[in-house]
């Protein structure tokens, strides 16, 4: 059986997504603040995915801690299962959709309308499942393989989108008690958070700014980062390690060139490639990057005054303790 097309490039009207961008230019004026229902304490299904159970446990810890502080009510999908990730997609989009769809069906069965996932790979699979269900030509096979009742009433968004909308709705205001002053942090979005635009339906595919805005809001200094959407090498770390060390080395090198002290990420695979594999990158490039790669919710959590333990800051391979150092007193304050 050949695969079925399940993706469209064109954005659909009425989609979840708040930054109106286009390939013609970056989004400068995101839509005015509105408070989405899911920011008001109603339940949001939480699908953390397999990585967050293992190598990215700090991403899970920090996401939960920040949501709790912001009053976002996450409910873990009970007995959730793997979305199949890239391997299922390479076998057949239908299998990928059904594996991811099981989690959507459980959430829908609980009466939940929105699934949030911190993993862009999982997000892609969840959205693939929704598209297979929406497409009249593929719906029947999808439901047949899924084998569970599913009406397609749930949607899926990334943790980045959730936090961005929380920022837009003013949830960060007054809660930032420990701004990351004088910390120079570059946002690294990677591939799937904003691409392809019709699929992601969030932010600008060429020059996304949502993470930039969040980092600015928590007090960090955010230089322009030209490689913010370059690919890190994805799953080839295991099978074709040189691909990852080459591509990741370029990203780390550019981050240093723009003066970064740390890289902010919102993807467990990007983080693994940039942080866990940084020693491999060092060996390949004969460099010593020593650049911390920190999950976005860990940075937000620090700014919100959550203790580093609850954010799993010590779980990162490259030490990021510089984030805990207080900023030097402002020169103007000293003179006055």
């Amino acid at each position, binding site marked *: 059986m050949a695969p079925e097309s399940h993706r469209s490039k064109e954005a659909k009207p009425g989609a979840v997504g708040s930054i109106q961008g286009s390939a013609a230019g970056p989004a400068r004026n995101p839509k005015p603040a509105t408070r989405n229902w899911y920011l008001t304490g109603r339940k949001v299904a939480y699908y953390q995915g397999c990585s967050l159970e293992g190598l990215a446990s700090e991403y899970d810890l920090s996401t939960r801690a920040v949501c709790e502080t912001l009053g976002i009510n996450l409910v873990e999908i009970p007995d959730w299962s793997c979305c199949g990730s890239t391997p299922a997609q390479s076998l057949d989009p239908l299998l990928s959709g059904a594996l991811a769809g099981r989690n959507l069906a459980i959430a829908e069965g609980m009466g939940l309308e929105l699934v949030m996932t911190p993993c862009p790979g999982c997000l892609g699979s969840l959205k693939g499942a929704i598209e297979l269900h929406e497409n009249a030509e593929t719906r029947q096979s999808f439901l047949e393989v899924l084998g569970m009742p599913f009406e397609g009433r749930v949607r899926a968004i990334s943790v980045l989108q959730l936090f961005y909308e929380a920022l837009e709705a003013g949830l960060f205001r007054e809660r930032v008690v420990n701004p990351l002053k004088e910390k120079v942090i570059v946002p690294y979005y990677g591939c799937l958070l904003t691409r392809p635009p019709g699929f992601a339906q969030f932010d600008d595919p060429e020059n996304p700014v949502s993470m930039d805005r969040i980092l600015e809001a928590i007090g960090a200094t955010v230089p322009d980062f030209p490689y913010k959407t370059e690919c890190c090498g994805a*799953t080839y770390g295991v099978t074709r390690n040189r*691909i990852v060390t080459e591509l990741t080395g370029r990203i780390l090198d550019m981050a240093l060139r723009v003066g970064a002290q740390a890289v902010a990420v919102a993807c467990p695979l990007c983080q693994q490639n940039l942080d866990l594999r940084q020693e491999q990158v060092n060996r390949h490039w004969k460099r010593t990057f020593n650049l911390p790669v920190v999950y976005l919710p860990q940075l937000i959590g620090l700014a919100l005054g959550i203790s580093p333990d609850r954010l799993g800051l010590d779980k990162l391979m490259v030490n990021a303790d510089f984030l805990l150092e207080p900023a030097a007193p402002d020169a103007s304050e000293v003179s006055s």
Partner: protein
Amino acid sequence: MEPIHILEIQKTCDTEFIREVEAASGQQVRKCYQCGNCSATCGFTRFYDYPVNQIMRLVQLGQRDIVLGSRSVWLCAACQGCTTRCPCNIDVAGVMEALRVMSRQTETVSEQDVKLFYDEFLRSVRAFGRVFEAGLLPVYGLLSRKPFTDLDLAPGLLRKGKLTFFPHRIGKHREVAAIFERFEKLRRSKASEGGKTDGP
């Protein structure tokens, strides 16, 4: 990589292949006019045997064997850069995905290690309901005859308490296995009907 003999291309043009790729991907590959945006975007060109714009051209020329046996098809990371920048609105990454699936079916997968890793990943999902990262690597290492794969990462992971030695099996793992079974059954029945897709 086999050299392409330009004069032979008409003889080896398989128009059925063009139709199959378009049906499987839902994309009109014929619209590609070789601007090269996809290859300019692609971070993987240096690892490919044919840059992605050449893959698109080879599909237009009906070169089944070259395309489905190419390394490019299996080294594409589906980063979606090409799809985002294609001025003809072709979902190029979607075409590459369809070609990966087709090369599995014709058993012409060029990068056997990548396929092996994916297969072991799915085996883990089927058995436990979730992927067991720490168990996946040693199995892959043994089967690919590269037992030292990522062994250098183990001490650090152990220090950070990130290595788990036992898989977490979800409660209803049989539901996940049943999805695999229903998928295989559907695929078998479609294959015996002779029909290729329920798409266009």
